[in-house]
């Protein structure tokens, strides 16, 4: 099954390479990986979706923790969470389907962010399935180019998985 992991890492050169290299070396396949800053200086946050059973993910998590620059890992799979993916899709509008394209943009609550006489760029955010659906609809109408960010994810509710005040300096007990 597809797991969504959030990985907090130190914002240092080469950390993305260390994480990606670990997936390769231990033969795990990354479905998608995103990385960006958090609101805490020096801390970056990755969202990784990866295929595997519980045992695989346990192994992966313990390997990731061996990386000195990895601070915290949370598996959001099965939890209440918000996941978002963003896509920019350039669509050919020269055909007679132009109005149909605009209609679909409305239906999917996407946005048109660039218009020329021959094409538009549509921006859409949502979970992966919604974007897949939108792409399926647009495909016969003439997609010229597309880019997707990959999923980012956050657990619902008021708790934060990042406890920045005491960034796990103390040793954690492990069962």
């Amino acid at each position: 099954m597809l797991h969504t992991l959030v990985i907090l890492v130190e914002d240092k050169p080469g950390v993305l390479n260390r994480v990606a290299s670990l997936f390769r070396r231990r033969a795990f396949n990354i479905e998608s990986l995103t990385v960006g800053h958090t609101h805490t200086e020096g801390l970056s946050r990755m969202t990784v979706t990866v295929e595997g059973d519980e045992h695989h993910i346990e192994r992966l998590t313990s390997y990731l923790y061996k990386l000195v620059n990895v601070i915290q890992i949370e598996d959001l799979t099965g939890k209440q969470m918000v996941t978002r993916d963003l896509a920019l899709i350039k669509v050919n509008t020269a055909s007679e389907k132009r109005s149909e394209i605009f209609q679909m943009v409305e239906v999917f609550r996407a946005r048109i962010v660039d218009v020329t006489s021959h094409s538009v760029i549509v921006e859409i955010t949502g979970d992966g399935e919604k974007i897949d659906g939108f792409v399926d609809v647009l495909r016969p109408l003439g997609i010229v180019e597309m880019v997707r960010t990959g999923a980012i994810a956050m657990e619902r509710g008021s708790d934060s998985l990042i406890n920045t005040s005491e960034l796990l300096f103390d040793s954690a007990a492990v069962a």
Partner: protein
Amino acid sequence: MKRTGAQIVWECLVKEGVQVVFGYPGGANLPIYDAMRAYPGIHHVLPRHEQGGAHMADGYARVSGKVGVAMGTSGPGATNLVTGIATAQMDSIPMVFITGQVSSKLIGYDAFQETDVTGITLPITKHNYLVTDVNDIMPALREAFYVARSGRPGPVLVDITKDAQQAVVENWQYDASPIRLKGYRPDLRPASASLQKAIELINSASRPLILAGHGVLMSNAMQELRGFAEKANAPVAVTLLGIGALPASHPLNLGMMGMHGETWVNHAVQEADLLLAFGMRFDDRVTGNLKTYAPNAKKIHIEIDPSEINKNVKVDVSLVGDLKDILRQVNPLVKPGERAEWLNHIADMKGDSAVRDIQNLPDNGHLYAAHVINDLWRFTGRDTVITTDVGQHQMWAAQYFRMDKPHRWVTSGGLGTMGFGLPAAIGAKFASPQSEVWTVVGDGGFQMTMPELCTAAQEGIKVNVAIINNGFLGMVRQWQEFFYDKNYESTPMKSPDFVKIAEANGLKGIRVTERSQVEAAIREAQAADGTVVIDFRVEQEDSVYPMVPAGADLHAMIQRPSALVETPQDV
């Protein structure tokens, strides 16, 4: 005080208590070498190849328990270290590698002797650093030593650009504050519920077996292991790297497990109702076929690295943390046990050891490696350090050198690195100058790092070399014999005259072709001032028994076809 980056490197090494560095100079680390003379407290050893330097530092670390330090220049200097780094990584050896790198402005431009060393070594180090700023040298080196020696130890590489080595800090001061790394947790402790569950399993087991691994030695838990085993009357099997965890002469020490382990040990594993894995990782050479491994046993795994838990073998209870600390908590709660039935059963499987004692076999005119190793054990002191290469001689050494002391058995287990033995012996001698040091090597592996003989000669140190010379890459030949219809492709090997090689290095060389000459040769080597090379011309097509073929069931061992050390030619 005013310090260059190069001086800061040495200042840090001094603060870390480093006494010996094995390194090779070159263009990108010349500033470090230029600054060396002002730090006479650190002895520098020049190997003949950076791989040799890495293995020397490794052997030094394994025998001393301290962090081993090896250095090399950029490019080929660093890539030559790679085998040594991977060897240390697989066997969890605390080491710091310091490499020179081209100047920061040249990085990425394919400059002369530029290599992406942190990229190359990323999967084979515990951690690594690329330092381009002089102000980062001290923090990187302090962290490197800390990471290398804490938790599950391992090699850390620090790659320092030449301009960082040359740059000057006007008001440099050593920072002695404790190191805290956000994402690094070397001091994990087990949950008390798990401890309770483990105690219950231990006290209710009737056929317990301890699997003692390298972790016993890394954690210095030899006394605690012995205390546990004696109190519970639990027999102990050792892994290849666990040799020395309990004296071989201890009645509860059954010997080595696994592919070339003792028959009764592997049967005991399969029949046990509780396996106590102490600082070992259920390597495939230890378990054989996982599907049929120890089918009757509950399993308790005490291990400092959480990623080893349930990796190869699913366990019932895991205790993550330092083995010594955990055993100190566990031992008082272990109920004294008799377990006479279990111990008697194992004794029955073992049979009369006098029958198997190869000393009791008459001299049939052949020289067998087993006799050489056994004589080496008989005629050397209990403090002797044995280092090995990889292959048949390594397994014979593990089987016939009955090691009683910890940290005296130095072998490349995980990576299985040929060429390890001689340089590791040189490093071991620096760690324990009062110990007699022997390296047992094959004719194949020895030739991989043979030039290090001259390093021993230059340093004036004495390590004796026992070449188990069978004219083959013996272990590969054995596999060809067993599994490839005796198709001895590319395993017969011509060697130079090793006696003359020794003499060419200004050392003594001895050739032994008969069993009756072994003792005199060992005595002569011991009496000589410097390093001595003995070329033991042993039986060419002897094999290591018993053997669990790769991936086979642990109890499905290939036994020696006839008597213990006879080959078909004898019949």
